[in-house]
Every structure is written in C-alpha cells, then in structure tokens.
C-alpha cells in the first residue's frame, strides 16, 4: 500500500527518534571503548594514540583478579541456589494453594523495591550479631535474596506458558506425578530455567551496592574492587575493564536471546 508523504515523514521522524534514543543508550559504551584504547593516561577525545596497554594492566591488576575470582565463587553459588529455590517455589506458586502463599510471594519479590543498601546493611548487621565473619556465606546469602525475584519471575512465566493439557495427557498415559515432572514439565521448562540462571548470574556478578556493605577486603567482588580503584586512580584501566564487561555481557545476552528468546522470558513478545 503506497504511503502518503505525511505518513512517510512521520515514519522517518519516528525512526530518527528511536535512533537518537538508541544512540543515547549506546553512547557511554562507545565512549568508554574509545577511552580504553587510548595510548595516553589522560583522557582525550579522540585519542592521539591507540594501545592495548590498559587492557594488559587491568588483567594483571591483582585486586581485579581477586575480585573476578571472588565474583565467580559468589555468583556460582548464589545463582545456582537461587535457581533451585526459585524454580521450586515458582512451581508451588503456579500449582498449589497453601496458606500464606501470597504473603510469601510478596516478601520474596520485595527485594525489587527495597534499596540494596538497606538489604546490605541488614545482612551486615545480622552477620555481626550472629557472630559470622564477613565471609562468603553472608555475601552468597545476600545475593540469593537479591536475585531470587528475577529467577522467580522468569520461571513462573515459563511455567504459565506450558500447555497444562500436556501434563494431563501424560497422566492419562499412566505417568505418576514425579514422572510427569521429570519427563514433561522440566524438559519444557528448560529454556526458562537456563535464562533464569543466566539473569541471576549476570545480576549477581555485577551487583555492587549491597556487596559494598557485606564484602570484606578478602571477599571483595569485582564491582567493589572497581569502585575502590576509581576513587583513587584516574587512568583508563577502568575503561578497559568496562569494555571487557560490556562485550561479555552483550555476547551473553545475544546468545540468550538467540537460543532462549529473551523476549518471551521478559514477556515482551506479542501475545498472538
């Protein structure tokens, strides 16, 4: 259907607006990439010389290495625990009626609106009162609570997207409940579970505010290490780390989108 001039102008304007917004979103990443490759220590745009030296320095920097290592430990534990707890609860939420169901759901989802500094402070105080050293256990517990809402949402949405008749069909063919779970529900839920885990992992690895409160020098995660660095030094090592971060995250998310359909999990696909 041929478009009128005004329609085409409208479309053009709309596309330009979207382009500008996307530009706004991408600007910091682009700028940081420029800064990271700068040959000199002082920021300048555009850079006079290009170099990989800041990447080399960032990767070699002890605090960053330790932070990366700690981050992996915390994230590995926190996202796996959160996945198991969250998936089980999402299942109970979808299928069962029990007392305090809504209350429990509200409490578990509330870390979405409670500021992370409050949660961090709280865990710090509890750990101190119970005599726990500020070790990994506290950090993992804190992270689990913080990423649980995302896992819960992701798995719950996936559960709701499974045709309930499939499980009825399995039962009608002679499968008892635990076999229905193992042969039908779980395999169909797999994309939701994997994307839930992925989101939890990315969020936990990048979590900063609460971690600032609950980590100690030796359990410091990478974002905390980066924060401490930025407060003292101004060289582009931070930019280099940031670029690595951005690239890895974008790749992971593209991967997640291609294989698992980010859109479906975030519930932004058309209902039809």
């Amino acid at each position, binding site marked *: 259907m041929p478009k009128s001039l005004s329609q085409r102008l409208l479309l053009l304007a709309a596309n330009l607006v979207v382009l500008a917004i996307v530009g706004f979103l991408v600007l910091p990443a682009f700028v940081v990439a420029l800064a990271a490759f700068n040959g000199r220590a002082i920021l300048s745009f555009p850079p006079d010389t290009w170099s990989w030296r800041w990447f080399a320095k960032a990767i070699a920097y002890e605090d960053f290495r330790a932070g990366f290592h700690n981050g992996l430990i915390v994230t590995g534990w926190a996202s796996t625990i959160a996945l198991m707890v969250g998936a089980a609860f999402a299942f109970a939420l979808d299928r069962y009626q029990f007392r305090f169901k809504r209350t*429990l759901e509200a409490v578990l989802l509330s870390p979405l609106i409670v500021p992370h500094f409050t949660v961090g*402070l709280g865990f710090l*105080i509890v750990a101190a009162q119970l005599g726990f050293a500020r070790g990994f256990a506290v950090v993992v517990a804190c992270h689990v609570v913080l990423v649980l809402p995302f896992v819960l949402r992701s798995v719950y949405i996936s559960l709701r997207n499974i045709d309930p008749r499939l499980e009825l069909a399995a039962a009608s063919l002679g499968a008892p409940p635990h076999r229905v779970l193992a042969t039908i529900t779980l395999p169909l839920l797999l994309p939701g579970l994997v994307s839930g885990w992925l989101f939890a992992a990315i969020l936990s690895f*990048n979590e900063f505010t609460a971690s600032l409160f609950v980590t100690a020098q030796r359990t410091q995660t990478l974002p905390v290490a980066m924060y401490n660095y930025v407060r003292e030094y101004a060289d582009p090592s931070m930019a280099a780390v940031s670029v690595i971060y951005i690239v890895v995250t*974008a790749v992971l998310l593209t991967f997640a989108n291609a294989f698992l359909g980010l859109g479906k999990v975030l519930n932004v696909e058309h209902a039809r």
Partner: protein
Amino acid sequence: MTDRPFLRTFVSPAALCALAFVAALAAVMQYSVRAYVPGSLEPGGLTLANFAALLKPLYGRVFLDTVWICFLTAFWTLIVGYPLAYALVHARNVALKSAILVISVTPLFLGEVVRTYSWIVVLGNNGFVNSMLLKAGVIAQPMQLMFTRFGVVIALVHVTLPVMVIMLAAALAHIDPDYERAAESLGAGPIRAFLTVTLPLSLPGIIAGVTTSFAWTFSAFATPQLIGGGQVNMVSNLVYQLGFASFNFPFAASLSVAGLVLTFAVLALLRAAARPLERIGPN
C-alpha cells in the same frame, strides 16, 4: 488435582530465604532504635534519638532532594523509554527487534559501577561531551556536568531505562494490534489512533514502569556517589557515609528505615493517584 505431592520440599527453601530477608530488615529496624556508641561497633540501649536527629533540616533536604531526583528520573525515563518500547514491540524485522532488545537490556546487566564510570568518561571536564563541544567551537570553557544534579539525572535515566522499556514493552505487546487498525479504519490518522487507543490501553504498563523506576532509582548508590561526588547526595549515599565513614550504624539504620517508609509512602501515593487513570485502561 487436589493432592500436593511436593509442597513442603518446594516451599521450605523459599520460606527460608524469605526468613533471611525479613531478618535482615528486622536487624535494620532494630538498630535504628538503638543508640550510637562512638568508637564502638556495638549499639547502645533503646532510644528514639536517631529518628529525632532525622528531623534536622539537613536530612530533610536530602530526603526531598532524593524524591525530586527520583521523580525527574522516572519522568524522563518514561519520555525516552516509550518510543523505544513501541519500536521494540512493533519492529517487523526480527534482527532489528533482537538488536533493540539486547541494546535496551544490556545496561541493566552491566552493573552500576561500569555504567557510572562510563558516564564519568562522557560527562567529565576532559570527557567526551566537553571535548567534542570544545573542538567544534560551540563552547570556550568545559561545561560543568559532573557533580551536578543534571549529570546525575542523565546517568540515572540511562540506568533506569532498561527497566522502563521492559515494563512498557510487556504492556504494549499485549495490546491487540487490531485495536489500532480498527481506529484507523474508522478514520483516525496514525497519531490520533495512537493517542486515543494505544496510549490509554498502555496505561497499566506506564504506571508499573513509573512505579518501578521510582523504586529502582531510590536504591541507586554508585551513580550519585561517583557522579554526584558529595555535591549531590541521595539517601543511599548518606547511609553509606554514616555507616562506613563514621561507623554510625544506628543512624544509618534509621536513615534506611525512613527511606523505606518514604518509598512505600510514595509508591502508595502513586498507586492511589493512578487508580482513576486505571479505569481508562483495558480493564
């Protein structure tokens, strides 16, 4: 089916996590009513002195500032995020859709420190914006963008945008495209069809987005800390300063409690204000 085969196994771990979370919050509330003993990490006896101290105008200003910044951020995030969400939902090209989705969502997953640092590089006196404008001859002196509320809000909008886009896109995706087509078949141009049909129907999404953005922004710490640099203080920064600079955990706790109360109050207000608007929506 009325039987519940795995109920206990599935719910207990979650209940445990809920308990841990509640314990953390309870700890904060407990500390907020204990006295601060300078030089010691242990709090003193029960007292309301912390809350009394909150009434000082200094702190009142920080609270008002925080609320104002949160509103500004939520507002601008809505303005900027809506077209993006719309484009995301209505893009026909699958590759384009994926690209917009990944680009919109990536900032969410980058973590506060990376995002905030990126904005420092953009906004600083030696940063991108200033360098470009100086080279282009538009300005003679670098513009002060760092350590200003303006800079903080821009960075916060960038930080909050993914959340808003996701909520808006979810709402928009569930609006049957036939509604707009019906409006156009009845003679409404695309802009009017949008304003009179799609926009009202997306109201629940807008409300959800604004509410979530507000709560999200209130929680922000690294952004105001690094870009505000002490000049722009939100509640989160104050809590950190008191907690870790002075180790005045009781007061930090009372600030947190006040902040929580404030957040819930504002959210409840937003909900109440939105109720008459919700009747315009599809339900």
